[in-house]
């Protein structure tokens, strides 16, 4: 049973790392965007293997929706019909490496510190969705509401920016 879960886990983790590598090293903006989709799909698969199907489907829904918007921009920027297309190159290598390594160290240290034996194992047939709903509106109500307010502000902000017209462009 353990082996049955471990084999797909390593396959999907490997694929996720492979796609992430493509994002890092490709010169083509759109290849990067499509690889991002691949990475997100693999991470969703890992969530499924961890029996967190709600998180997995949310991953599909939210990130894929976001990715589609990103792709549109990719398409607009690298339109091959009118020009050669934008070739990306890497900037701030030194700073990026420092941030990546420090983040890795923090996470790695944190994961090593977790006592996995103390984490309660939950039965697989538990109703995930109900539990998430109840927890969101009791235990995590404040963060949930704050997230909602932040999203509302972002929505208002984006509509204000897109609706803003200067005198010259106004017809």
């Amino acid at each position, binding site marked *: 049973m353990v082996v049955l879960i471990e084999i797909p886990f390593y396959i999907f983790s490997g694929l996720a790392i492979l796609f992430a590598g493509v994002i890092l090293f490709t010169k083509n903006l*759109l*290849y990067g965007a*499509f690889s991002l*989709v691949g990475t997100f799909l693999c991470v969703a698969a890992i969530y499924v293997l961890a029996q967190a*199907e*709600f998180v997995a*489907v*949310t991953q*599909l*829904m939210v990130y*894929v*929706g976001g*990715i*589609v*918007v990103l*792709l*549109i921009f990719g*398409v607009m920027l690298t*339109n*091959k*019909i009118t020009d050669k297309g934008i070739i990306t190159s890497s900037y701030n290598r030194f700073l990026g490496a420092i941030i990546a390594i420090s983040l890795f160290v923090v996470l790695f240290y944190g994961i090593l510190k977790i006592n996995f034996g103390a984490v309660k194992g939950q039965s697989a047939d538990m*109703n*995930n*969705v109900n539990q998430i709903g109840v927890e969101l509106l009791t235990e995590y109500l404040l963060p949930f509401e704050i997230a909602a307010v932040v999203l509302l502000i972002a929505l208002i902000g984006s509509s204000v920016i897109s609706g803003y017209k200067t005198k010259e462009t106004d017809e």
Partner: protein
Amino acid sequence: MSTILFFLPFLLLFAVLAIYAERKVSAFIQDRYGPMEVGYYGILQTVADLVKLLQKEDIVPTKADRKLFLIAPILVFTFVFAGFAVVPVTSGWEGAPIQTGVFFLLAIVSLDTIGIIMAGWASNNKYSLFGAMRSAAQIISYEVPLTLSVLSVVMISQTLDLQQISIQQGVHAVGQETNYLFGIKALGIDVTEIGGFLTWNVFRVPILFITWIIFFITSLAESNRAPFDLPEAESELVAGFQTEYSGFRWSLLMLAEYGMMLLVSFLGVILFLGSWNSPLPNIGSVRLADWTTGEIGTLSGHLWSAFWLIAKALLMVLIQIWVRWTYPRIRIDQLMSVGWKYLTPIALFVLLIAAVWRLFMI
């Protein structure tokens, strides 16, 4: 397992027959015969076309992005096909047993765009690119009312499991949940035993009928069907995102398009029109609903529920075809204003009423 064993062969057979139906229906609407030569009444015309398509050369344009161009049709079909994994086949044979079936299907419906954008961009053709851009804009806009309309049903059913939603809408709900006429407990008429169309979601909670219409319109847009077929508008964009494709890959794209039609039809039937439950009610000692539903797990139960589910889904596909050949295509700005200015506010309003209605039910 239902996906490979049942839906793959069923989808292939469906695509062949649906394309034939599409041509015949369009012919009848335009007062002509349609295909008549191959087989009796032209029924083998699609098979002949398919044989021709599979023999065609698989052309990749020189200036196209070869890798993405080759992957894209497979990706489009895979995403659509993945959606069938959670669709139940009969009352005793559900799809993948996940609790978030509806949520998963909503995600799948939007995943399809990625393949379409990939196909459009990789073709390196301005018509393909326009088709892909339109498709993305369209699916993002119509996802909002689609999700809101599905949310109304989820709020009434209190579950995301497709099989659970199905059970609630028929005589098998006895002992699990009490259904009242029009969902109003104050009326005091218990229709759980009666079953039939009275316990379907559109009758159980009549406000869901408006939701169903919104769902139907948005599902047309999500599956790129007329009057929302702007991504492949043949009179302006040649064939949209699939202009450069030929042979097997083109037929995969067509298969995915018809698969999408079938998938949203299944979803609509399961959410609104009683899923695999019989439309015939029990009238006194004439147990029509019991006779035409069968017990869960028995042979008659499997046969009846599969029959009702598939028959209803095919009827919905027929309505989609009928709509396509009746209405003209709408303009891109009209498409946007229909989605954002009309469907989204109506869907929000209906969601509110559905929430209030839910209080009448308990």
